[in-house]
């Protein structure tokens, strides 16, 4: 448990992806089964046990601490799990020995005896149970250094508390009854150190957010054996914690585990952005084109289990099983095979904007009302499997025919084909991209963010192979805004003011004023970053922790040309709008701040995207 805790602790502070990967690989390499498998399960969200409520944890700590001191501590630390982990009194470690008659002749040694004993209690098992070369925080719970109590070694009367392994914790959680849970947790807390307790609370309350995606964890497993992450992905959904067969395979000690999943995820094929210079190299007659829909990429797989019952799954682009979020779509998967397409919201035959789609996403409870209001729709553009037949080696044009036949056979309004965009030359396609509404998309044009261009002969390959698929996005919206705040970046950019909040003009009570409309932290070169950073430092008027307010006004301020993909209404922003993917496209050193855009420019763009159909008058539920 301590090693897992140390890993989580370190990951929590590490912003760089590659460094996280290194830490994960190192952990998997040096941690035995089944602990590492359970750690993998914990990080990929694959663990099944009834979580403990924060209230339970709080109850436990309140029985053990002065309520007033706990209150002050919680107020100071701000996070319950962390406060509890830090304040938890380790057993036998009454915070202080009772007063002793000390007047006269007191030396440095006083108090050592008690503390020595505490040390031995805590450090013995912690260091013994995990012979780790890693920064395992096998620290004694007491604050004194072992030298102080070193003369009192293990072997005294008190039996050392048993430091649980991660496997033990997880296996116990799966079988412990609710009434036994508090005592179990308390015993573990007693045995662990601060970091261990923190990790334990995060684990049992299922609040394990340490910035590691399931994909990253799987990538680390693959790296352990010098494999591609997709190789792990392919068999992942048939595996179960603690994944001993998986580790054996990547380490070359065992057979490739069979995927027991009749509806597995297959790694998606991704596209490259099309650059202007590419056209000269590409022959239009080799390619087919579709609209690029502004939705969410999904893969729908369907098969049947050994008992003959259908198994239907919906996966995100990265292989995350999202079936539970779309029961309406799962119902429609009446086929065997795997298809690739875009999740959209379609009302009365019309595709709704991404803003509408967002209201369906990330909901904890998928209620009938939500489904009725935001009906999920899958607009498909590829087929990977039909029955047992792997279609991926076929040319795209061939697969397309098979896909068309399948969709016709399905005959379900929730699943339809993404239409092809006919073109003879790149100029034709440029025209269609510029005006999708006239090029056949009709009223769905607002949900289109450009074109997909696919080589007719292209097989379906995992990852982002070169030369087959291209995305040709519509031009971004542009707005000239004024820099208002600069914030320190993270990781490599932590010493630079690299995140900029910018605003546009609007009419305020005292005349024109700037209102913040967004924040951007990329789009500029390293050289430009240095200049922007210097600008922020030299024009600071106020500081709020990592944020600096810069000078701005009619006659001063820096204009930034901001590019963005779309807008949505937002109650969280003062201006009432939020941008999608804003980035700095140009720094307008030359432009006076007074000539920056006004909020009306954004309002107009917003109205374009709001031509959606509202099925229900009552919009309150959507604002939640």
């Amino acid at each position: 448990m301590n090693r897992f805790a140390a890993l989580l602790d370190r990951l929590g502070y590490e912003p760089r992806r590659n460094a996280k990967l290194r830490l994960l690989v190192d952990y998997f390499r040096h941690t035995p089964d089944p602990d590492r498998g359970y750690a993998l399960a914990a990080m990929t969200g694959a663990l099944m046990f009834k979580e403990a409520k924060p209230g339970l944890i709080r109850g436990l700590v309140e029985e053990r601490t002065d309520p007033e001191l706990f209150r002050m501590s919680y107020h100071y630390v701000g996070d319950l799990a962390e406060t509890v982990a830090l304040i938890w009194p380790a057993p036998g470690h009454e915070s202080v020995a009772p007063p002793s008659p000390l007047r006269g002749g007191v030396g440095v040694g006083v108090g050592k005896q008690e503390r020595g004993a505490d040390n031995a209690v805590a450090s013995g098992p912690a260091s013994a149970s995990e012979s780790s070369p890693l920064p395992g925080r096998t620290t004694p719970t007491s604050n004194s250094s072992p030298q102080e109590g070193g003369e009192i070694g293990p072997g005294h009367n008190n039996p050392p508390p048993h430091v649980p392994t991660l496997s033990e914790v997880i296996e116990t959680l799966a079988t412990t009854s609710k009434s036994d849970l508090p005592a179990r947790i308390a015993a573990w807390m007693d045995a662990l150190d601060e970091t261990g307790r923190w990790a334990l609370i995060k684990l049992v309350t299922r609040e394990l957010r340490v910035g590691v995606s399931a994909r990253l964890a799987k990538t680390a497993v693959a790296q352990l054996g010098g494999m591609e992450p997709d190789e792990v992905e392919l068999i992942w959904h048939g595996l179960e914690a603690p994944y001993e067969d998986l580790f054996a395979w990547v380490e070359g000690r065992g057979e490739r585990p069979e995927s027991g999943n009749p509806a597995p995820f297959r790694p998606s094929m991704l596209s490259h952005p099309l650059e202007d210079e590419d056209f000269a190299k590409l022959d239009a007659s080799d390619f087919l084109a579709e609209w690029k829909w502004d939705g969410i990429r999904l893969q729908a797989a369907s098969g049947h289990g050994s008992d003959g019952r259908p198994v239907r799954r919906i996966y995100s682009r990265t292989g995350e099983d999202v079936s539970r979020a779309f029961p309406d779509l799962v119902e429609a998967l009446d086929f065997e095979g795997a298809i690739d397409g875009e999740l959209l919201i379609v009302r009365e035959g019309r595709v709704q904007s991404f803003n509408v789609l967002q209201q369906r996403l990330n909901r904890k409870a998928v209620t009938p009302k939500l489904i009725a209001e935001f009906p999920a729709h899958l607009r498909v553009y590829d087929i990977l499997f039909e029955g047992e037949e792997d279609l991926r080696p076929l040319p795209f044009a061939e697969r397309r025919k098979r896909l068309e036949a399948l969709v016709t056979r399905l005959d379900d309004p929730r699943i339809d084909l993404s239409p092809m965009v006919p073109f003879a030359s790149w100029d034709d396609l440029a025209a269609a991209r510029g005006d999708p509404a006239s090029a056949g998309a009709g009223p769905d044009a607002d949900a289109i963010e450009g074109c997909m261009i696919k080589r007719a002969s292209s097989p379906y390959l995992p990852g982002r192979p070169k030369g087959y698929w291209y995305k040709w996005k519509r031009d971004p919206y542009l707005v000239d805004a004024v820099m208002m705040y600069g914030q320190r970046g993270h990781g490599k950019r932590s010493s630079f003011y690299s995140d900029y909040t910018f605003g546009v003009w609007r009419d305020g009570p005292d005349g024109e004023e700037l209102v913040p409309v967004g924040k951007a932290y990329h789009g500029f070169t390293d050289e430009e970053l240095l200049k922007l950073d210097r600008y922020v430092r030299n024009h600071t008027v106020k500081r709020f922790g990592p944020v600096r307010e810069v000078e701005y006004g009619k006659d001063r301020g820096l204009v930034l040309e901001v590019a963005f993909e779309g807008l949505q209404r937002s109650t969280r922003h003062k201006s009432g709008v939020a941008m999608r993917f804003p980035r700095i496209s140009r720094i307008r050193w030359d432009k006076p701040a007074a000539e920056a855009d006004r909020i009306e420019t954004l309002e107009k763009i917003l109205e374009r995207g709001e031509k959606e159909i509202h099925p229900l008058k009552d919009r309150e539920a959507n604002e939640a």
Partner: protein
Amino acid sequence: MALRSTDILTQTPQGLYCPLGDFHIDPVRPVKRALITHGHSDHARSGHRSVMATRETLRIMGVRYGEDFAGSTQEAPLRETVRIGDVSVRFSPAGHVLGSAQIAIEAGGTRIVVSGDYKRAEDPTCLPYEVVPCDVFITEATFGLPVFRHPDTRQEVKKLLDSVELFPERAHIVGAYALGKAQRVMALLREEGYDKPIHLHGAMERLTELYKSEGIPLGDTPKVVAAERSKLAGAIVICPPSSIQDLWSRRFPDPVTCFASGWMRVRARARQKGVELPLVISDHSDWDDLCRTILETGAGEVWVTHGQEDALVHWCTTHGIRARPLHMLGYGDEGEAEETAHPPLEGEGRERSERGGVETRPPDVRAATPPRPSADPPPQGEDMQ
């Protein structure tokens, strides 16, 4: 007739004052006679007419402020009673940094101990704390909350060494206060067997030399040469906390930002500073040691100078010890450390630190801080810790 404790020691705008001996302890403004507990800049300021402190503290003040930092100086021998006016005064080791001392003041059968900053944990760079029995114990409470339990420093240093091993192509930049913490980290690294050079920011150099001249072995500690920074892959570099987020530190190969401080116990604190590898190493007492020390002194009354006073006062009260917070200004003000400017380095145009929005130190206190000779490396905010 026993004197009341407040007859022996009172609070003045300058700091704690002993009327019977006519001296201040750690005054924040220039006074006639100052007794100084240790060399950190919030306790030891220049411009007093006379200063009494341990030999090491006097040396530290000389390095920081120039040899003329006070009109006259008097060395306080440890554990020896000295008569000043109508009181007797005794300095004893406080275990905080090199030369740090507690000051016991006794008159009419009442003894008050001003502990300054102190710690109980082992520190190879200074003498260990000695319990001085007393009637009134004056304590700090920098880490005066039960969430602060400092771990074993050896494990923290091991964390650093493990990271150096795992990321050999990156430089580990360790933020540490220039007086005490930096040298303690070096000594701890040496104890763990690290024998490569430990690279130092220029602001650490003179105090580190002073430590070495006091017989503390710190090994090879070359100063970082600006042009050579990019070659320090795999190295450990120690710099003032304000430099870990500076452009200065970004010129090292893919730096890992580390910070050695008791504050690193709290994750939000570490994150605020952009720290990637927090090292919980403190020169202050943690909660358990604060409580333990109060009990061991046998004091019937406790005054809390600065830090998290409320919690410690609450604890004393629940343990039948009279206690009151002094709410003293000018000590251990957090935030101050972060914004203390140091000389621009290698022309990177580090801006003068302006103070809009984050003012934490009362202006009168700061205004009273005497100017320092500009050639001297300014203190790097051990005020905070």
